[in-house]
């Protein structure tokens, strides 16, 4: 078992990076790895509710983020600096996630065996 930290840093719309990153995170968790997830930079936009990715020809993979807790992925952090830049509040989050300081994220990365950025 390894501690795997999956960092999302791309916007949910305009590229498919996060969709495949999410697949990786969930598969790692189902293979009994200890997975944590971080949203930073434009990726904080994943937390916005009521998005319709189908309108831009994408599968609605955003709904799947709600399943992270079912996969025992309990540590889901959102960079508060990035959230602030995008005017996003914790009360608006579309799925269970916690606002975190840069320090908290650094600590999580330090504790991880592997860090993967999508």
């Amino acid at each position, binding site marked *: 078992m390894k501690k*795997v930290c999956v960092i999302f840093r791309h916007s949910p719309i305009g590229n498919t990076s996060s969709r*495949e990153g999410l*697949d*990786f995170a969930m*598969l*790692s968790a189902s*293979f009994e*790895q200890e997975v944590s997830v971080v949203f930073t930079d434009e990726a904080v936009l994943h937390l916005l509710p009521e998005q319709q990715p189908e309108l831009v020809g994408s599968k609605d993979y955003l709904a799947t983020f709600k399943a992270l807790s079912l996969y025992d992925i309990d540590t889901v952090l959102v960079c508060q600096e990035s959230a602030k830049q995008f005017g996003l509040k914790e009360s608006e989050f579309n799925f269970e996630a916690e606002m975190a300081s840069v320090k908290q994220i650094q600590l999580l990365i330090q504790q991880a065996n592997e860090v*993967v950025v999508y």
Partner: protein
Amino acid sequence: MAPLQEPFFIVMNKFIIQVNGTVYGSTASFRALRFTESVLSLGHQVSHVFFYQDGVMNSSALICPASDEHDLHRAWTKLATEHNLHLVNCVSAALRRGVLSAQDANENRKDAFNASDKFTMGGLGELVTGIEQSDRLICF
């Protein structure tokens, strides 16, 4: 008289390489190739090279740049042959991007396939177990 040499230990690590960058238009795959060559030359082990996201394009046998250009597909297959490397494509990522093995083409009723047989089609599970069994994952 030559001084006595200190005993030294070579620390050998087992790496797994993840390539997310496409075969042309980004330098990620080239950097992954150079890194892989380098760790092998230093005596380390590379358990798998796993191609994910746009990285699966590296496995297309139809890549044919002009003769004065770098052919990354050929470079990967050459390195794999020389070092008996295990090149693995994520099959779902590959199918989405039109990279098919003969078996995939047959199963999906397509007229042609393009994945080179130096690359095997595998699942993300192979990446995850590979990460678990290696000392270090390096992503490009």
